[in-house]
């Protein structure tokens, strides 16, 4: 038997190591749980890191109120099944102002309901370290971000002034009010995530599997009409298509892809012959060039 670790085992070990470092070094960590496949993997790794003890931190979902209904259902079932401490935070100011992605555009909606909401939640509970499921292969500014990403008291990221990150030795020191965002699966690719889900049998939201769903074609994307808040423009119509999602977010901002892949095996097969990168399905990245970096400077994950 080979003693060498497979690449997935090495990636798994790296993530577990990072979880333990944070738990040992910070006063009040939290894991940002966004319900998607990356969060499912991250949650699975958090459970592994502290087994047989439960993860020594709570989980936070920043709910924009525009997530797919199936996501919310999956979130609540998961929290119940695992008995984890799940905090749900909604930016009530944004709700009161009636912020929504249709009238205000993805930029404003995302800024208020996601970025500002996250800052509110982190401040409210005084978290000094927050885990996120971002990966370096997703986007150019992510490729340059540290695993331990320092944030100032305003939650801002300064890409020009990042702490050097050597070996597996992490500088975990922050002053009062400052915090660290931690990305344990930085070095995973989308394909790694799917392979790991398959090998470890990790539950994911059914929206990742192909099924007939009511979709509308808008701005070159297939948007699923998840509830009555989405109004059709003149000339638009919903039609039932076999579709699935490669990433999940707010339903009006998330494009579906046409697919017949209705099992994990089929998804991995499809991945291997995929011809487009996954973030193409996200409106949020297309708003303007360099948009991710800008959002991150403002405190986005």
């Amino acid at each position, binding site marked *: 038997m080979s003693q060498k670790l497979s690449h997935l085992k090495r990636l798994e070990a790296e993530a577990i190591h990072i979880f333990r470092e944070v738990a040992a070094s910070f006063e009040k960590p939290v894991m940002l749980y966004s319900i998607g496949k990356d969060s499912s993997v991250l949650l699975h790794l958090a459970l592994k890191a502290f087994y047989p003890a439960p993860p020594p931190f709570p989980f936070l979902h920043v709910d924009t109120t525009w997530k797919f209904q199936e996501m919310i259902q999956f979130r609540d079932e998961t929290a119940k099944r695992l008995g984890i401490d799940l905090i749900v935070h909604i930016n009530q100011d944004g709700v009161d102002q009636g912020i929504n992605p249709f009238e205000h555009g993805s930029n404003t909606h995302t800024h208020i309901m996601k970025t500002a909401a996250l800052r509110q939640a982190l401040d409210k509970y005084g978290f000094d370290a927050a885990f996120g499921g971002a990966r370096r292969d997703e986007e150019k500014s992510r490729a340059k971000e540290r695993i331990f990403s320092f944030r100032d008291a305003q939650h801002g990221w300064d890409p020009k002034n990042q702490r050097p990150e050597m070996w*597996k030795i992490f500088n975990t020191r922050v002053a009062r009010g400052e915090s660290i965002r931690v990305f344990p699966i930085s070095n995973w690719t989308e394909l790694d995530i799917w392979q790991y889900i398959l090998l470890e049998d990790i539950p994911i939201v059914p929206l990742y599997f192909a099924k007939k769903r009511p979709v509308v074609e808008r701005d070159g994307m297939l948007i699923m009409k998840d509830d009555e808040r989405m109004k059709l423009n003149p000339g638009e119509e919903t039609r039932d298509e076999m579709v699935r999602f490669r990433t999940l977010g707010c339903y009006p901002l998330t494009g579906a892809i046409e697919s017949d892949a209705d099992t994990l095996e089929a998804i991995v097969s499809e991945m291997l012959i995929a011809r487009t990168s996954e973030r193409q399905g996200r409106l949020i990245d297309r708003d303007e060039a360099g948009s991710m970096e800008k959002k991150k400077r403002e405190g986005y994950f």
Partner: protein
Amino acid sequence: MNTLETPVALKSFLAEQEQKTLLRFLTCGSVDDGKSTLIGRLLYDTKLIYEDQLAALENESRKWGTVGEDIDLALLVDGLEAEREQGITIDVAYRFFSTSRRKFIVADTPGHEQYTRNMATGASTADLAVVLVDARKGILTQTRRHTFIASLLGIRHIIVAINKIDLVNYDRTIFDQINEDFRAMSADMNFASITPIPLSARYGDNVTAPSPNMDWYNGPTLLGHLETVDFEDERLESPFRFPVQYVLRPDLNFRGFAGTLAAGTVKPGDPVVVAKSGKPSTVKRIVTMDGDLDMAVEGQAVTLVLEDEIEVSRGNMLVAPADRPEVADQFAANIVWFSEEPMLPGRQFILRTETDRATVSINDLRYRIDVNSFAHEAAKSLELNEVGYCHLSAQSPIAFDPYADNRATGAFILIDRLTNATVGAGMIVHALRRASNVHWQALDIGKKTKADQKGQTAAVLWFTGLSGSGKSTIANLLEKKLLVEGRHSTILDGDNVRHGLNRDLGFTDEDRVENIRRVGEVSKLMVDAGLITLVSFISPFRAERQLVSDMLEEGEFVEIFVDTPFEECAKRDPKGLYAKALKGEIKNFTGVDSPYEAPEHPDIHLQTSGKSPEELLEILENALRAKGIL
């Protein structure tokens, strides 16, 4: 990569994934040597480019490309070039690709000398370096520098990618010459393997497929070598090391030590010892969520349960009893300096290893290493991106291996105590024997006894402030008062000490640090003798005042900030120094061309404006009485 339409194909694919290993490597070489094109070529040939990215690339190639009708592969990576102008991409970027045999993480590091620290960052986690050499130019200064840094950071395997071989007509003699030059240059660098490959990143010769243009070359392709090079065996065969990260205690019946194996293997039943205490035990279980394991290997994150209830906490290590790490508080290390603020011997930092931490000071900078010529040079400080060989002493012992034996247990970073910035990285060479041989001499009569005999509390009253702020005036008044009250005291005055004890020191930053260190040590002896010690020193740097404070026990150091505005001091100018400094006749004058870092939380704050020395003395006396010193 094949399309997988049948379940059988998928099964064999997944089985393949279970065997696939992970290699982290680094690419380096000057930008013109074709680094971007080579990475682009690897991504392109291993089909890691998606359709939308390829469409964008074709567009950009037509617009910006430098290779005619062909797709310019460099642009795949050069999305970062534009940002370089804004000064962001001086940083490492990580890229990913995989084949059926291995997954690769590429640290793409910038080439220029001023980014040495970024290359060190990329090299710290890499097991192999691809050093690009332009066949037309041969070994350049940058080639030397990068190869040296790769060896300094412990990379054991080198690929010398002799690129643009098409531009020298695939000439074997040129390849042979560069190979020979490289071996001569790196003879002392202790690489386990050096593999030269002639290639053309632009046309793909010997990148992923053997070149039809070089019959004389029988070696591997670049990808072929990356897929097969053996880099893990050494780490598995090294003695067992398990730095404890976290103690898991979910209930009274379970106590497990969570961590990642830094070297070797472990099985239930194996004897282990705790590195710092030498206490022995035996491994009872290797616990994971997937069930207990029969064996764990280097790189694996597990939880160990021991047979005995022994004390082990985070920062300690479980190790092989027959082959233990060093445990010492003094050691020699190579340090790469990361900070704009130069490294000055004498200052204190927080040292962090993978799981341990200690307060440490760099006692001695033995020499600086020129990264271009590898020469050892005498130096008093290390500037940003410089490398030096130093002696360090920690306030508590740490467990470690020489970096050459184990990169995980032989490395550390240095953190600034005030800003929390990561200011340096170190690779331990060996323990310093004097740490174990020079023991403290236990004294029969304690310092408290000596102070009690004099009927007083011994302390250092540290007066800091600008030149001419009134430090000495107030200290002198206080000493007279103390004499009248029958107390025993002494004064150390900055100017006077410089005539004697510190006559060999000047006014550079390095010398100022040493000046303060000596005065701190002398003050400590005075306190040991039971004296109230008044020190009147400009002492402009926070870090140095902290240094003295740390030498003394809690409550023994009283920082008194004599706060007189610069304008006022310059106006008083009792020694005529400000006038000279402002004319540029004195260099490094505090407040003029050298900074004064005011105390953020002084124990006593004397704001002198509008008050007479006698009034200030009264304020000071009251404050000292409140602190129980008078």
